[in-house]
């Protein structure tokens, strides 16, 4: 068992190292120079070569690549992710400001889409082949096919412009809100983005839950349980517990994708999250931020996967036994 844990951790460590190296290389392969984004064209054009060199120097972008790589690795070791070209501030503080907002959105959406998706999926599986099943399936396919920005805009139109229940942009409470009121204001602003992300994540979760339960229901132990005369409810509980395994995997693995994929929703709702920061930094060739943010994403995904691998044996006795043998 311990050997298994060690091996898993080592494997993920190797993945992490490879990812860190790639993370350095990829942004530098894209065309475009950071300076051209720093200044509007008429000024970037008006800079003398010396001024350009001075600016690039300040960010260490004139050093030879091996030098830049050394600084990069040393920085990661120190927990110091350089300074953003666009903001002139440490990348760690930029990421710190945003990660909370993203966790609020992504965490909320993940919980909602997992719970609702799993419940609906199990319900469909139990009634497989009925019109309830096909109806739900069709509905889920429809929601899944809608692009998140479109769902976001519809929600905005209906609940913000139309009904006036929720504010239409931003994350922060107005500056004149105090205490409890400001917490309420923050939650109010999170409702529509969370709903949008949850709707976007609902489809895959539903499908996984449904197919998991369908295959569990075909197992011998279900037949056995039915033959024993257990009630529907009890049979369902047996099967559903087993079907939860793939659902938990998808939820954990989906965490990383969701963090990066929230960019569109963050744009529609002017939400200051990580996704939008990454998107804008890519456009700006703001290498330090791109690297910092991707590093954070990579670590999130690797850790989520590692957790999944390590926790799985406890959720599933079969896996646990297999390792003991």
């Amino acid at each position, binding site marked *: 068992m311990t050997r298994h844990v060690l091996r898993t951790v080592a494997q993920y460590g190797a993945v992490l190292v490879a990812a860190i190296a790639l993370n350095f290389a990829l942004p530098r392969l894209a065309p475009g120079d950071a300076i051209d984004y720093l200044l*509007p064209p008429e*000024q970037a054009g*008006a800079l003398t070569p010396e001024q350009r060199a001075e600016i690039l120097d300040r960010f260490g972008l004139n050093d030879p690549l091996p030098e830049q790589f050394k600084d990069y690795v040393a920085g990661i070791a120190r927990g110091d992710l350089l300074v953003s070209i*666009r903001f002139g*501030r440490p990348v760690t503080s930029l990421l710190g*400001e945003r990660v909370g907002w993203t966790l609020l959105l992504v965490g909320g959406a993940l919980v909602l889409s997992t719970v609702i998706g799993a419940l609906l999926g199990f319900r469909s599986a139990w009634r497989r082949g009925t019109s309830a099943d096909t109806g739900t399936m069709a509905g889920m396919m429809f929601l899944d096919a809608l692009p998140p920005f479109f769902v976001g805009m519809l929600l905005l139109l209906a609940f913000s412009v139309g009904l006036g229940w929720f504010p239409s942009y931003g994350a922060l409470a107005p*500056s*004149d809100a105090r205490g409890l009121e400001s917490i309420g204001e923050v939650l109010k602003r999170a409702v529509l983005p969370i709903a949008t992300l949850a709707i976007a994540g609902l489809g895959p979760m539903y499908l996984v839950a449904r197919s998991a339960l369908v295959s569990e229901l075909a197992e011998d132990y279900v037949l056995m349980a039915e033959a024993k005369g257990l009630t529907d409810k009890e049979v369902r509980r047996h099967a559903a517990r087993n079907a939860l395994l793939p659902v938990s995997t998808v939820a954990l693995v989906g965490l990383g994708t969701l963090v990066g994929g929230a960019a569109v929703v963050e744009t529609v709702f*002017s939400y200051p999250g990580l996704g939008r920061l990454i998107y804008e930094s890519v456009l700006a060739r703001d290498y330090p931020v791109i690297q910092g943010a991707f590093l954070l994403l990579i670590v999130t995904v690797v850790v989520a996967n590692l957790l999944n691998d390590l926790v799985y044996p406890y959720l599933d006795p079969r896996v646990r036994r297999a390792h003991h043998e």
Partner: protein
Amino acid sequence: MLRRVLVSACCLGLAAAGLVAPSPARGQAGATKTVRVAIKGFENNITPFTVGFGALPATNDIQHLVYDALFWSQAVPDPEPWLAESAESEDGGSTWDVKLREGVTWHDGTPFTSADVAFSFDYYKAQPGASGRYAHHVSDMPAYDRSEIVDEHRLRIFFRQPAPQFRIMPGGDLPIIAKHVYEGVAEPASMTTQLPVGTGPFKLVEIVPDQRYRMEANEDHFKGAPKIDQLELVIVKDPQSAYTALRTGDVDMVERNIPPELVEQLRGTDGIGVAESTRFDSIQMYFNARKAPWSDPKLRKAISTGIDLDALVDTVLLGHGRPGRDAFVHPDSPWALPEAEAGHDFDRPAAATMLDDAGYTAKDPDGVRKAPDGTRLELNVLVSSFEPTDIRAMQLVGEQIAPLGVKLNVEPLDPATLRTRRQAPPGSVPTYDAYVSSLEAHAHVDPDGLYYFFHSPGPKGFGASITGYTNAEMDRLIEEATGKENDERKEILGEAQKVLAQEVPVIVLYYPDGQFAFREAAYDGWVADKGQGIFTKRSFLPGYEEIAVQGAADLEEPAAAGGDDEGSGVPVIPIAVAVVAAVGLFAYLGNRGRRRTAEDE
């Protein structure tokens, strides 16, 4: 089980909705009068050394809420004395005697003196990298030399060559910074989080990165206390979201030009005013003047003559703009040639004749002409993929010039890639054919603007260093203009514009109108500040009522308190019906399924 969960979820949802249901409109209830303005992007702490130009073209306007210049504004030939009471020169502009306003204080209470002004000029000059666009106005054109402090409120400013337009540039543009803040600071660009200290009508009191700025009125401003107590600049990057926020009342004004397709809709919305005040924007296509065949002025002029700019304005801008002029300079700029001499004549047959005469007679089987050396007239135009209007415009231009035998390909690129494609390693020629870009007031009103854009590429690295345009007559005229006063300079710059109209190194497609939307009930003191739009410090200061915008407020009944804007063009009812129908269908199917299971049992 599921049913119960769903029911309780619905109840929770409803309860939450009740909890969050309309709270009283902010900013109107209390004693503080707050105006919320949606801006495009974050600008760090908005000092001249730290802005990122994410909020362009408003970057300058935002800075000038907190900082002041000696005069205001750069867009008029006779700017209003601001921090300066007067500025006089007796030697044709090489030496300026500046008298400053007395009793002005910085936001931190320190008195403002002539030492601050002298320091500002010296500091901008010493920090060419960090001071970005302000640097060239003190180091290159006009060429600042040094200052001499006469007393607390008087100083002499020396230039290395006559700077007769000192009051406009840099006088009307350069933010004056505090000596006690920047003295001894070697890297001002790294001071990105401190609150700025200016003399302007607003003090910046809170910065929430990428979300908002909060400014408080500077009650002691020398032009009088601002008419509002608080100004909040909130960052809304997506244009659709910005106008949604305006409709819901979450913001009171959107600081960006209304997209043409939204103008009529916003005009028809109760409670929303639409103000007109151009910011002297222009959208133009630059030819690569160093690459054959586009280096041939006759070819460029022929292509320009084959473009119907009126049709562009009608189709692309839906009429909300003016067609471009071959002479480049914005028609409302103080330096512009009169319309009759500077316009644009669309004449397709004449354009064809010009191409024939210039030797572009050979044609490929597909009808595309060839240069005498055999090169096909295929013009590849780089356009920012973020500017759908520019892309539409260039596609239309392509259709217009196709009958001439010139093939135009539009290549949309992300902005950073586009800028790289425009550049070339030192010593070589960039490979692009043409690109589209926009300019704002500063380019059109700077008395030396033509110098910066069209002088031969020179050792200083500015001039037409991007397009590589070279013309000896042009160089002579704009060099001569730099030392001349108003009328004489205007005449010489007029001659230079005539050269541009003949040689067409750029084709101006159009000058978009400036149209801005605001909520009348929240604030209606907006003024049309020439060349600055309406988001300008004058909009918040007393004494400019005579240039107040002609908003809808003057035409209609004042909006009732609470600004009722139901049915403001949003299809709430259809959406609600669709949602109800979907839920109904779902419930129906669910029940059928349930029944069938029951029957099975």
